[in-house]
């Protein structure tokens, strides 16, 4: 009975898979060559399209959490609030303070926006399978640039983002701005180490820094335990948040909040101490660019998180209702979960003190990440030295058998 049901699901799934296999040529155009452009258009359209909505989502979620109404005046459930905000920012008076470094002052917001957007260039949304002219099947990732340094590219882009903030702080010629800029650079540099080390844990497991390889490496049975049922293959239990034994994902999550200067680590723009930090002197569109840059940055960092720790385009379970939904939807859902997490933290946690922030980064996260990297290295050494699947099987078996039986 059960086996029959499983076979039925499997047949159904194969049938659905076949629907998604595209021919290589379509009216004389080689389709795989178009994939990067489609991905580019998709990523940027999505990013820029969702930006105004993010603000609305954030306000609604915070409203719900804090038992307030949130936006409810313009349109149904305040849905017209984002366009109104955008319009307001467009038409606000553009103030240029005196005694500033003009060129850098205008450059700063664009740097922060541009660098944040550039990170999107390597994000894989999902895979598509093509049938070539000989009838064979092959799969390519849908990403604007499928480079072998994907993860490093993301890291590079996120580390360049600090220039926008630091230049804004300096060029404004305002001590609050400068302090904000200094805080931001110190904070970002400090947390980049922990972030890089937590990502290295994943690289260690996946054996690649190419993002689509990392996602594909998660498409196995959890911990390589071969006797688990096949619907767990590439499931939520085999993604790297669990396979790297949870600590790296915690470190990454904390570091990503610090990297994007969001609550509770929003020291660079702590309004109670620094007015508005690095963007105190920015108004109207320049401020809006900063604002948008911050949200784009959040999206990208959550996108990386979703790819490396949460299985990218993989559905949470490898069986019918989940596999029917296309990969990029899962991916976007995962990214939005990250954004929700950001909002959740912002609604609930108070801001850290600056020394506490630095202590957390240098004395807790960094050593923890280092130790974990060593542990994982030892673990995968043992794993490759023995047969790849034996160690986790043994661990699970012992854990299962030892107590009681």
């Amino acid at each position, binding site marked *: 009975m059960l086996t029959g049901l499983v076979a039925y699901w499997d047949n159904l799934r194969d049938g659905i898979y076949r629907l998604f296999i595209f021919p290589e040529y379509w009216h004389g155009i080689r389709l795989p060559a178009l994939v990067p452009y489609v991905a580019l258009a998709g990523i940027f359209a999505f990013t820029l399209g969702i930006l105004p909505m993010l603000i609305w989502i954030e306000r609604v979620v915070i409203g719900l959490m804090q038992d307030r109404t949130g936006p409810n005046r313009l349109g149904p459930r305040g849905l017209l609030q984002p366009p109104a905000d955008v319009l307001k920012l467009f038409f606000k008076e553009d103030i240029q303070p005196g005694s500033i470094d003009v060129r850098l002052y205008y450059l700063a917001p664009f740097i922060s926006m541009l660098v944040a957007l550039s990170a999107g260039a390597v994000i894989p949304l999902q895979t598509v399978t093509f049938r070539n002219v000989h009838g064979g099947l092959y799969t390519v990732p849908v990403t604007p640039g499928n*480079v072998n*340094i994907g993860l490093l590219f993301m890291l*590079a882009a996120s580390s*360049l983002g600090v220039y926008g903030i*630091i230049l804004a*702080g*300096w060029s404004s010629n305002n001590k609050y701005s400068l302090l904000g800029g200094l805080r931001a650079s110190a904070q970002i*540099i400090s947390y980049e180490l922990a972030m890089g080390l937590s990502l290295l844990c994943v690289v260690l497991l996946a054996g690649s820094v190419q993002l689509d390889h990392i996602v594909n490496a998660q498409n196995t049975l959890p911990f390589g335990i071969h006797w688990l049922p096949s619907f767990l293959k590439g499931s939520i239990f085999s993604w790297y948040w669990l396979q790297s034994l949870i600590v790296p994902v915690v470190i990454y999550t904390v570091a990503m909040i610090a990297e994007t200067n969001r609550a509770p680590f929003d020291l660079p723009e702590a309004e109670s101490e620094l007015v508005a930090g690095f963007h105190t002197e920015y108004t109207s569109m320049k401020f809006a660019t900063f604002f948008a840059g911050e949200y784009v940055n959040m999206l990208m960092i959550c996108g990386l998180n979703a790819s490396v720790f949460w299985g990218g385009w993989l559905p949470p379970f490898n069986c019918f209702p989940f596999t029917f939904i296309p990969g990029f939807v899962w991916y976007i859902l995962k990214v939005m979960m990250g954004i929700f997490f950001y909002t959740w933290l912002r609604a609930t946690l108070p801001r850290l003190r600056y020394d506490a922030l630095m202590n957390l980064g240098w004395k807790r996260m960094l050593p923890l990440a280092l130790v974990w990297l060593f542990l994982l290295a030892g673990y995968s050494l043992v794993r490759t030295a023995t047969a790849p699947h034996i160690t986790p099987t043994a661990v699970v078996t012992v854990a299962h058998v030892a107590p009681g039986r």
Partner: protein
Amino acid sequence: MPALILFWILAIVCIGAALTMVTAANPVRSALSLVVCFLALAVYYVTLSAQFIGAVQVVVYAGAVMVLFLFVIMLLNLGAPVTSSTKGSNQNTAAVALGAILLLVLFISGIFFEIPGKAVSPATAQAQGTVKAVGLTLYNPHLPWLFPFEATSLLLLVAVVGAIVMTRRQV
């Protein structure tokens, strides 16, 4: 041909940024020009199919080293230029003359340089710059790169200890 055009554009950016870095009186401007120069170099590395080094160049130099520079400049509030950013004119002249000689020597050594022997196919070269190839070369048990790598880790330990020793307040 497009490669050559890209080379020249980047060369202009690179040399221009380097010159700005030297001539600027304001340290912040110097630092930013240097960032531009480093980014142009990173693009060079990518065009030379050394993708890994290109990314590391951005992460380490542009993302960490130069941010530290800017951080220190701002922390010490050195943004304002000193009265004269360069030394006396005699020394300047001597330095430029020395530089000209050095440039001539280095140019002669470089400009006629050709790699003798067979040309490397682009595909081979392409495969050499990936993370995998670099890692395999670095840890190859038959090549001498492992030891300097280990020595470098000692050097970094010294640097960490040193940075803490130097900047910690007197106990």
